[in-house]
């Protein structure tokens, strides 16, 4: 995904399908976009650089949103999984892993640690993938 963003110039077919899907989705300005679309298609050879950069940015934007949403879902699952266990699996959470350490205490502490680790995952992704891709785009 990000590789594609970095490579920068995917096929024209991808670009065309992206445009049609944007229109197909009932984009409010679709009637206005109609006459301009063929023009951009024709003008493409001259504007190859700018157009593919825009596409690459859109790719990057989509992967950033996807990473953000996936990680949000992960935190959501971890936390509400814990709450569900507290509500429905009390005996389990009360059972001891070691003297003094119940499953519940371990799970609660792990929720806190997991939340922090997930922020690290995001920061790591953003620093090693997103930022370089953005820098490459900016340099064009």
């Amino acid at each position, binding site marked *: 995904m990000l590789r594609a963003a970095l490579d920068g110039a995917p096929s024209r077919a991808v670009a065309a399908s992206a445009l049609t899907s944007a229109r197909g989705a009932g984009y409010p*300005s679709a009637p206005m976009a109609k006459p301009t679309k063929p023009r951009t298609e024709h003008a493409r050879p001259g504007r190859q650089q700018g157009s593919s950069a825009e596409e690459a940015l859109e790719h990057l934007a989509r992967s950033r949103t996807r990473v953000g949403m996936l990680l949000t879902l992960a935190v959501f699952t971890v936390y509400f999984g814990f709450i569900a266990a507290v*509500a429905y699996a009390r005996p389990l959470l009360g059972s001891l892993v*070691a003297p*003094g350490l119940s499953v*519940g205490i371990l799970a*609660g502490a792990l929720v806190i640690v997991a939340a922090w680790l997930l*922020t690290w995952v995001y920061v790591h992704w*953003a620093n090693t993938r997103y930022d370089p891709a953005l820098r490459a785009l900016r340099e064009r």
Partner: protein
Amino acid sequence: MNPAAAATAIGQPSAIAMVFFFLFIAITLGITYWAARRTSTTEQFYAAGRSITAGQNGFALAGDYMSAASFLGIAGLVSTTGFDGLIYSTGWLVGWPIVLFLIAEPLRNLGRYTFSDVVALRFRQTPVRIAAATGTLATVILYLIAQMVGAGGLIKLMFGLSYEQAIVVVGCAMIAYVLFGGMIATTWVQIVKAILLLAGAAILAVLVLLRFDMNPLALFAAAAERYGAGVLAPGKLVSSPLDALSLGLALMFGTAGLPHILMRFYTVPDARAARLSVFYATGLIGVFYLMTFILGFGAMVLVGPDAIRAVDAGGNMAAPLLAELLGGTAFLGFIAAVAFATILAVVAGLTLSGAAALSHDLWVNVVRGGHADAREQLAVARIATVGLGVVAIALGIAFKGQNVAFMVSLAFAIAASANFPALVLAIFWRRCTTAGAVSSMAVGTVATLSLIALSPTVQVDLLGNATAWFPLKNPALVTIPLSFAVGIVVSLVAPEQGAAARFAALSRQLHFGDDQS
């Protein structure tokens, strides 16, 4: 059984606590004096000139978020119920990843001073600003009332000052920080407070663990041995799963809609620093909550739940009592001063974000249509600061003796239902419109306030009625989806030409930022 009960110095005017407290006031006023000379533009007043580093902002975010309620409240809850306190700790933390994944970087790149900037970017200014400022002020004022009333009660318990005196002292100090030092002073007050609070909690946790061979499990085992294995297992806190889910949603998504937290992302130079600062803040807050868990169990074993309840029925004095037992009156004074400093820093951050909503959103962008010179902007911001400070003092005194603990979760519910959905729709959804964003914020605010008024929290606990019309204590389970649904439906029913086209420009700025700053 409870050796500390008779001997406690809590509630007596404490010279040592006073010394520590006035030392904190002196240091922070010194910072304010230093900051005041660096606060001559609106960018410096609202955003510290974008000069705060990621590490500094991480501490400041933690400082803004770690309230006395979480320090004293969670330690107290753990000391009287055991495991259940941990449910709160996790809830208060899980909002931070959401802030990072969805909000922090777009906010930094798209706005200037307030979160309304982001929502207003591609929509019509006036209605969006009014709706966003209303959501901000509702959140800030509810949060302020809870903090002020908490401060009054706490200081009365710890220093022997009268309630009204305490409120006035807190109010005046907070006005001074914000009025003269703006965001620079507020940020450094947060940093000093965060370090003091983390250090205080860490010292206390180590003092506890020293009695248990530095092994937390030995501490938990001792608690289980004395008070039964039940203290290590879920108790009565989550009696209704739906209530727990609703509160959890409010905490998780409310953090990402708290105006004073969001405003902090404008103080750093770029999106990368905003990102790193959340990572640091999450780590600091996570460690802090793990330490409060140790403190709670320490207080349960060493002080005893009965002795804790004897001083304060809510258990809020667990950590101070533990400090007195382990470190004597001097350490109690230090912890008391730290708790006071904590409240002071939180209310300063709240006041600044409220003042920004009043002056930047309402005055400059609505009343003056964006045409106000720098001097006027700064003057209005300062007037708004004093106004809000006076209102906070008045409300603090007006709500004396009321049970206002629910107001914090109410503030989170409004932030989650009024601010968060509009922010997400404006940033991520191409087809969102002005009417969609405004109706989402308006419905979010009104529905949250109405459902709280009809909830058991107000109807049963406050008014003493037998039943409540609305079953949930926190309305977020209903109001967050409602607010999203209203925003989406209204946007789809009446498309707006310009808004969708401007989304492309927004998308560019979201990633590349505003190259000027």
